[in-house]
């Protein structure tokens, strides 16, 4: 996969932002993840050239942290909270239902149409609203299993603004 020049320039720009930091790798990767949604090997190679760390080391860091992703995520990232407070209030049944509705096998998978990625989150800190899930930045409070198909349908049919 070839990287477009404009993307490459932006990546170099991000690397330069942190030129004066002693160990900038995490900051660079966070910014790239935020901006592009994933950090494929080709991008890691550019970072490697810029900051002089071997690609192997960068790859090691990218694969260690769950925030960094090698593959692009769906347009809507459904994050079901599996923190303890949500778990004891039944969030496992919520994520099971989400996966079932989207015909996905496990958390982390994306639908083939690129619309959804399902993630298991560790506590979003809205424990009073348990069980909860997030779709992108929107939080759905006090969910019931029976709410799930309707919510997903709204997104599938484009009834919700991205």
């Amino acid at each position, binding site marked *: 996969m070839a990287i477009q020049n404009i993307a490459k320039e932006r990546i170099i720009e991000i690397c330069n932002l942190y030129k004066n930091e*002693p*160990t*900038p*790798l*995490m*900051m660079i*990767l*966070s910014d790239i*993840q935020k901006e592009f949604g994933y950090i494929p090997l080709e991008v890691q190679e550019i970072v490697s050239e810029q900051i002089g760390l071997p690609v192997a*080391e960068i790859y*090691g*860091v990218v694969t*260690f*942290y*769950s*925030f*960094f992703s090698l593959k692009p995520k769906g347009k809507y990232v459904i994050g079901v909270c*599996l*923190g*303890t*407070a*949500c*778990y*004891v*209030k*039944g969030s496992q*049944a919520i994520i*099971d*239902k989400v996966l*079932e509705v989207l015909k996905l096998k496990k958390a982390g998978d994306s639908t083939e149409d690129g619309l959804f990625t399902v993630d298991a*989150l*560790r*506590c*979003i*800190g*809205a*424990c*009073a*609203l*348990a069980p*909860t899930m997030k779709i992108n930045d929107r*939080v759905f*409070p006090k969910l*019931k*299993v*029976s709410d799930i198909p309707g919510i997903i349908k709204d997104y599938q049919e484009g009834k919700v603004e991205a």
Partner: protein
Amino acid sequence: MAKIRNAQDLAKKIGECEGCLKAKFEGKDGKRAIVICGGTGCLSNKSQDIHDAIVNKLKEKGLENKVTVNFVGCFGFCSQGPFVKIFPENTLYRMVKLSDVDKIIENDIVNHQVCEDLVYVDPNTQTKYPKQEDIPFYAKQKRVALHGSSMIDPENVEEALGYDSFKGLAKALTMKPQEVIDEILKSGLRGRGGAGFPTGRKWQFAHDQDNKMKYVVCNGDEGDPGAFMDRSMLEANPFNVIEGMIIAGYAIGAKEGYFYVRAEYPIAVMRLKKAIETLNKIGLLGRHILGTDFSFQAHIRLGAGAFVCGEETALLNSIEGKRGMPRPRPPFPAIKGLWQKPTIINNVETLANVPYILRVGAAEYAKVGTEKSKGTKVFALGGKVNNVGLVEVPMGLTLKELVYDIGGGVPNGKKFKAIQTGGPSGGCLTVKNLDTPIDYDNLIAQGSMMGSGGAIVMDEDNCMVNIAKFYMEFIADESCGKCTPCRVGTKRILEILTKITKGQGTMQDLDYLQELSFATKNGALCGLGQTAANPVLSTMKNFRDEYEAHVRDHKCPAHECKDLMEYVIDPNKCKKCSMCARGCPVGAITGVVGKEAFKIDPKKCIKCGACMSTCKFGAISKR
């Protein structure tokens, strides 16, 4: 705001700000003030929309110059959120909806009438509490680390200065660094991140190192699922935590500090960033603070979703741009830490206690608490408890007071079963532990630990084997893989627990479980692995009968483990409406509308629970 160049400047500014804030709270500025909860919990529940609607409505009424509106930090009583509070009357409205905004403005702001239906009502006594300080939930709490939370605008340094901020730093800078450390030692403050190491001693180690470069690191990588103390403190009063860090820097001789905060906390990071920028502008961070020779700068580093980075040496590796794997100790970070320089790593809550200790003095601070655990502790109370929220209690309060007096007991008339403290490193305590006074040593003696402050209540519907499995899944997933006992041990423990929850376990598995747990505990490199088996050990100790029921009788007493339970429809309660059958994803429910009670075919049923949550008549239960 002008630069604060010395102690006199600061004292003068503090005096002005205190006057302003007092006038705001008492209405002496001729205005009324509306504050809205801007914590993550309430913001997730539309408090931003409520804020905007209030602002618009005030404009519409031409009242924008008569009423101030701002966000404040978490009120703590999260299950009653979102909150709107009105000064000077001090009226607290809870569970405010967007549709209530007009009413609040019309009735309260315009006509000075309290909106009775938005006031907190005690569910047991039906008493109405229009004022926050009277609500029983707050009665046994004492706010030290949460100072300023729900009172001040976290993005406004003048409100922070008017609410005691930087008095502690001013005091510290008149003392010698050693005197500051002595004060912290005398206060008895222990690390709030979990292990409870005396903070003063940690500082002393770093202070005694002869090195030009030293660092203070604030550990805000709050990874315990179900815990949000650190986040709330950073969101509600970032100035207080930064002040604690500056004092720590002065005490050990560091010029640089790093906040390591979870990337999952965007609001906390944003407010912290703003606070650091502001403090740089007014000279409370930077070179020659208050005209002294002491200079200090604070930086922020974001985590990237790795629980192990809450372990201090793994955290240091992460700041250094590496995989977040722990380092062997010794050398301890106080000798060789960040970039091999002497470093202290303090939890957010620990640092949030520091300004208070300097402000009121160690002796006053140590009046609260038990013999070996001084001060207060913040807990994120959650799970099956009526009053979910963030509470700060004096050490020595009993678990019973926490669960019942503050938490309001278990909802829906269910029976209390256990309280889990310490997150994945802690354990489950039961009814017989409820009279235990909360402190570091008591909780360890009972087989759990303080941890960072998660406190999750479980009722009779929670299966303790399943809870142990839940934590083990978490740990097995988060184990960094560096040392074998943790990497392999947690996986094997998880396999056995999974077997048991499927009804395939043997009695010998229970012995294996115990043996593996001890091996992991004793053999692992860092705190994560050494405590990983605690949830298993504590549930096995306190709920052995549940483990045996899974193995011997192939039954899950709490009906939670899917393979060991089934859903049934009570034909006497069934109204034959077919709602359940229509909602069943696999067509496992049959019956005839209006004529024949519905039935679930256990062979087809995938136990998703959709039917039970759909049935309006409570006819479906677990068996």
